[in-house]
């Protein structure tokens, strides 16, 4: 689950990381007052979960409270990379002496959290990571003992921070570790972490991603989830325990298991078709789940055919077939369909489907060829 900048920064502040003065608003006229409160000049930042906000015109500088309101009005009427701007953050403008990059994430290969820091902070950090990886300092964290003081000193020295700043930097880094642990984050990033001309650290921008698997420990954070970034069908799918991702093609897919679902969309493409979605029904064979999957796939107007691919391991294929038939009677799909059932009691299941005049397939390749042909209006 991705958090907005304002949400991330508010969590940072709760854990003692200094952030600029400012407030998030959804109506433009409030911008004027906030700008006045923070000294007249302000930064207006669209709160949208896309990368490259600044370059897309989502971050504007206002020289006066009046301009702050004007810019907030413009931003609140905008879309950034297809997402509506519903909120803007109005922050004080600060005078910057230095920009630092500071983040904690998980290192999959090392199976430990890792702290990353660089004195080359700012918008081009991803470029730096590719061009000058030596400028990014990495430090693995033992999750059983946490980030230690000595590691933070090591990092401060490693990125050649002025000694007078080490103590403050250490507090920010240790607090970032605290918020990372407390929220079960998979990313907590401050970019840039600035040193103001007054010599104070401020988290000018913030990004956090929380582990969806750990949200059961954070009911308060679940409530602030922004559903804008997800297609309504994806949200609907989640309710039924389905994983649905819309793609751009014409052939709908319903598969059990994520790996097999990916292999199924792959083989459709291999046969000259384009998958309309990825859908994993999981271990579910219940009619309710299959019916929901049908409805979700078919509400995509591009869908010209549906391929159902089920491997019955523990699940019996005859039960799956009955589930499919009942769900079809309920949803009444109008597009051609191909069903492939493999595994336990497959013959029995396929016979049930054949008796109901459904097109079936033996192999994955056969299934893909059939649905691609049918979706183009051909005969299987």
């Amino acid at each position, binding site marked *: 689950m991705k958090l907005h900048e304002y949400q991330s920064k508010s969590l940072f502040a709760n854990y003692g990381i200094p952030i600029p003065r400012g407030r998030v608003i959804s109506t433009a006229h409030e911008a004027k007052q906030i700008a006045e409160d923070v000294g007249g000049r302000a930064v207006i930042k669209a709160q949208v979960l896309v990368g490259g906000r600044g370059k897309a015109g989502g971050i504007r500088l206002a020289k006066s409270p009046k301009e702050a309101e004007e810019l907030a009005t413009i931003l609140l009427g905008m879309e950034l990379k297809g997402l509506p701007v519903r909120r803007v953050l109005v922050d004080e403008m600060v005078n910057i002496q230095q920009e630092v990059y500071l983040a904690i994430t998980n290192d999959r290969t090392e199976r430990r959290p890792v702290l990353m820091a660089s004195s080359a902070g700012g918008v081009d950090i991803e470029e730096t990571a590719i061009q000058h990886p030596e400028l990014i300092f990495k430090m693995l964290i033992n999750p059983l003992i946490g980030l230690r003081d000595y590691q933070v000193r090591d990092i401060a020295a490693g990125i050649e921070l002025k000694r007078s700043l080490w103590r403050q930097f250490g507090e920010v880094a240790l607090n970032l570790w605290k918020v990372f642990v407390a929220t079960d984050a998979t990313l907590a990033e401050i970019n840039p972490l600035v040193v103001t001309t007054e010599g104070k650290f401020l988290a000018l921008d913030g990004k956090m991603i929380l582990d969806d698997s750990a949200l*059961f420990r954070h009911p308060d954070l679940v409530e602030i989830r922004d559903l804008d970034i997800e297609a309504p069908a994806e949200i609907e799918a989640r309710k039924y325990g389905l994983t649905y*991702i819309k*793609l751009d093609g014409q052939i709908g897919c319903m598969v059990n298991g994520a790996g097999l679902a990916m292999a199924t969309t792959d083989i*459709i493409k291999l046969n000259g078709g384009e998958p309309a979605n990825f859908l994993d029904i999981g271990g579910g064979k219940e009619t309710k789940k299959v019916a929901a999957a049908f409805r979700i796939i078919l509400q995509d107007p591009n869908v010209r055919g549906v391929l159902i691919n089920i491997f019955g391991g523990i699940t019996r294929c005859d039960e799956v077939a009955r589930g499919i038939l009942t769900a079809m009677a309920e949803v009444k799909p109008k597009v051609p369909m191909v069903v492939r059932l493999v595994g336990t009691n497959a013959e029995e299941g396929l016979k049930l489907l054949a008796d109901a005049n459904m097109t079936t397939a033996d192999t994955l390749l056969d299934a893909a060829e059939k649905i691609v042909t049918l979706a183009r209006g051909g005969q299987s």
Partner: protein
Amino acid sequence: MSILINKSTRLLVQGITGHEGLFHTQQMYSYAPGTVVGGVTPGKGGEWVLNGKLPVFDCVRVAVESTGANTSVIFVPAKVAADAIFEAADSGISLIICITEGVPVSDMMRVQTYLSGLNVRLIGPNCPGLLTPGEAKAGIIPGSIAMAGNVGVVSRSGTLTYEVMYALKKSGLGCSTCVGIGGDPVNGTSFLDILEMFESDPHTDQVALIGEIGGNDEERAAEFISTRMTKPVVSFIAGQTAPPGKRMGHAGAIIEGSSGSAMEKIRKLEASGVRVARHPEEIPGLLKR
């Protein structure tokens, strides 16, 4: 023969009285009755399951003392999975297979760090477990879809693995051991670990590696194959059509930048001499009879 489990395995089921746990205990027991010795459910010690065939204990320590169990299969809910792994590791279990899906990454990081100091192997979480055809089954891989043979199978997914095993069986090919290492970003055992085991297992002559997008486990496997593996490896990588940055169900299957993409993995594997199938059903044709 096999790796990790065989007919002398002594298996304990953590979460044995739960819905999933009990069902799969029944399956594992019918597949190889001698290998399953009991189970654990806190608060239900003293009870028996499967019509009095298997004892239930309150904790793993007592279960190990009473049954001599050396392997544990975990079916407990995600919230308590880390605790179940710690308990098994602290109670003398040397092979832990965690089937549970949805374990928080932070929990797994702590588990991994703790286990790294012990002589304990963890498979999973979010995995289908292990099957050594004809000898033992530790997990949820359906026993009927594979027969004994010389192909070692290792995979990050569930049903896709079954698909490959089933295709092997239809072509008359059998497996030495099938290992589902799980689809999570942080798992206990990697492709590389399993390839090392297959390489030194006298009964495995060739290996099928079923990978998917995300992470760099396949890339590391490719390096091992090119430098240290003598047995032939064939592969399939799922997710070639996955759009970048999207989660395809498995928490692990997220493309991070260009690394972790299917194309990159296939390129590295092929460069290491691995024959990569275009779709799962091509795998049997790439293996030696």
